[in-house]
């Protein structure tokens, strides 16, 4: 595997780092305090080309490789998780399914605005009573006279209720298949369709500047051609999307770990206690050494999963491993980072407090740690008889 960065990848990493440090870092604390999504910063990220990184150029995307995309998410997450979340969710969950499974007409209709970041798109899988067990969705859609009628609700949907959201991809039960199992299909539901309402969820512990929404469907009618891809393929599409999405979440863990570590190392070197720097007590130095090691290992694992994907090899197991490992790395590093900051680490004025909060999401979103272990265990054959 070759994970050496091309000159362009090095440049884009630097550009995103400069942008994140220059524009996101100064805004983060206030946005977090006010629990506010920033349309302005989101559209700035769009202008820089961060919103349609892997989508084909003919629809306004950049057609870039997965590693380039992950570098962007990593660098944003190094400074502010919420903005990394906006970008990661939009690219892999918003743009991804339409670009991969959409019809020509759907791609032409939605992708140019989505890839430019003028508009956002949500991915509605989770329901109030079905998260990890998404196969048990209850939102239904029935087809009659060329129209789908949707009823039900979704919850925790990223980017789905901002003023620039154009709509969401929604997984619905569209019948039962021959073997009596639920038939799942995905529908594209534009904002403003009668009966479709969204509500931003408030009082989140983390990702406070990212938009998270509830979606309600009350006899919502969309034309038949709003079906994404093939009827009955919805669950497969969602799972495939999540395989890619996990790499984005993993990159958030890696970037977040790096950000927390950078802050911790700088602080521990400058803070004095008992006449020496806090970093120079061996117990602390070892903690920092462990953080550095974990981050290197996390990066190697994530970039390998990414290389497998770009080389066209199966990557589901490695993506699950990378997501799990990066999430745990960020949690560990953020914990050490707060510890090394002492009391100041408990104050929101210090970014490590935010990293500590934000780390938790990565163990839950896009498949919990337990679900990642299920994916890995299944792939290594634990559930098959010898």
């Amino acid at each position, binding site marked *: 595997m070759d994970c050496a960065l091309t*000159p*362009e990848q090095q440049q884009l990493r630097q*550009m995103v780092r400069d942008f994140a440090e220059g524009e996101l870092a100064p805004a983060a604390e206030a946005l977090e305090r006010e629990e506010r999504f920033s349309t302005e910063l989101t559209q700035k990220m769009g202008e*820089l*080309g961060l919103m349609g990184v892997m989508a084909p150029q003919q629809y306004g995307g950049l057609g*870039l490789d997965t590693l380039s995309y992950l570098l*962007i998410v990593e660098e944003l997450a190094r400074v502010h998780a919420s903005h990394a979340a906006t970008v990661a969710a939009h690219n892999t969950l918003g743009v991804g399914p339409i670009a991969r499974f959409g019809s020509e007409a759907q791609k032409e209709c939605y992708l140019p605005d989505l890839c430019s970041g003028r508009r956002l798109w949500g991915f509605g899988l989770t329901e109030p009573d079905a998260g990890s067990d998404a196969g048990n969705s209850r939102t239904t859609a029935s087809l009659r006279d060329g129209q789908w009628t949707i009823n039900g609700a979704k919850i925790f949907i990223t980017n789905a209720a901002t003023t620039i959201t154009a709509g969401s991809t929604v997984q619905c039960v569209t019948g039962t298949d021959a073997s009596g199992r639920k038939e799942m299909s995905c529908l594209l539901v534009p904002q403003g369709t009668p009966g479709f309402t969204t509500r931003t969820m408030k009082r989140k512990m983390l990702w406070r500047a990212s938009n998270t929404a509830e979606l309600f469907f009350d006899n919502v009618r969309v034309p038949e051609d709003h079906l994404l891809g093939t009827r009955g393929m919805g669950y497969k599409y969602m799972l495939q999307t999540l395989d890619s999405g996990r790499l984005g979440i993993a990159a958030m863990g890696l970037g977040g770990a790096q950000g927390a570590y950078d802050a911790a190392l700088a602080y521990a070197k400058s803070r004095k206690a008992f006449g020496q720097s806090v970093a120079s007590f061996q117990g602390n130095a070892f903690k920092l050494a462990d953080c550095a090691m974990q981050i290197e290992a996390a990066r190697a694992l994530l970039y390998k999963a990414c290389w497998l994907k770009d080389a066209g090899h199966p990557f589901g197991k490695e993506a699950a491993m990378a997501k799990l490992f990066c999430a745990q790395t960020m949690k560990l590093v953020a914990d050490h980072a707060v510890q090394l900051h002492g009391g100041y680490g408990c104050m929101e004025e210090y970014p490590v407090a935010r990293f500590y909060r934000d780390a938790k999401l990565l163990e839950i979103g896009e498949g919990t740690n337990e679900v990642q272990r299920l994916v890995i265990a299944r792939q290594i054959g634990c559930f098959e008889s010898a």
Partner: protein
Amino acid sequence: MKIGVLVKQVPDTATKIVLTANGRGIEEGNVKWVMNPYDEYAVEAALRLQGPLSAEVVVFSLGPARAVETLRMALAMGCDRAVRIHAETPLDAFATGNALAVAIAASGCELVFGGKQAVDDDAGQVLQIVAEVLHWPVVSVANQLHVHAGNDGITVHRPAAGGVTEVVELGFPAVIGCDKGLNTPRYPSLPGIMKAKQKPLTEQQSRDLLGGVSPHVVLQQFSLPPDRPAGRKITGDPENVAQQLVDWLHNEIKVI
């Protein structure tokens, strides 16, 4: 019209400078190289005129192979092509200015922007030397620019002492030194970075450009500033402390 921009690759200002053993250079191992911050304003100034003047923007850098990174950054921001001038041996400001002037003249540029100074050696000479060699006017420390209505010249504002603003009218050709506050440099966009790959980046040799001109100044030695001396503590009753302080500020430091 063609607009030239001069950029220099310098160590990031946060870099901790370590000298080489012989004191003639700095250890480059841990240096993070960036575009001289003032040059970013120059690139931005040129790019803002690219459309209105239908101009081709050519970016020049005299520097080692790694300076290509800085040129690519300028291309990613939107410059049209880049020229790196390679010097076999270190050049002073005089030779650097001469080499750049010859390259600019050959390129057909009629307006040249550069940063008011480079933050590594802070010499602030190259723009003036370029202008002198070319016999062009130069205005430096520009903090506002307006192109004339007929696109036949440019109005430049520069701060002078006492809060006064000097307003200078220039025709073309001209050289302009840019200061912080002139504009807000753009970030290179991702599409910009990808397009930059396709843009021409050529190399020239300083000896071909310089003819017989050679440096006037040869660098002998760098030295780091001395460590800050320990502070002085004044003790005693308030009257006595005040007396000592005044004494010290007046007689030794000579600030009051």
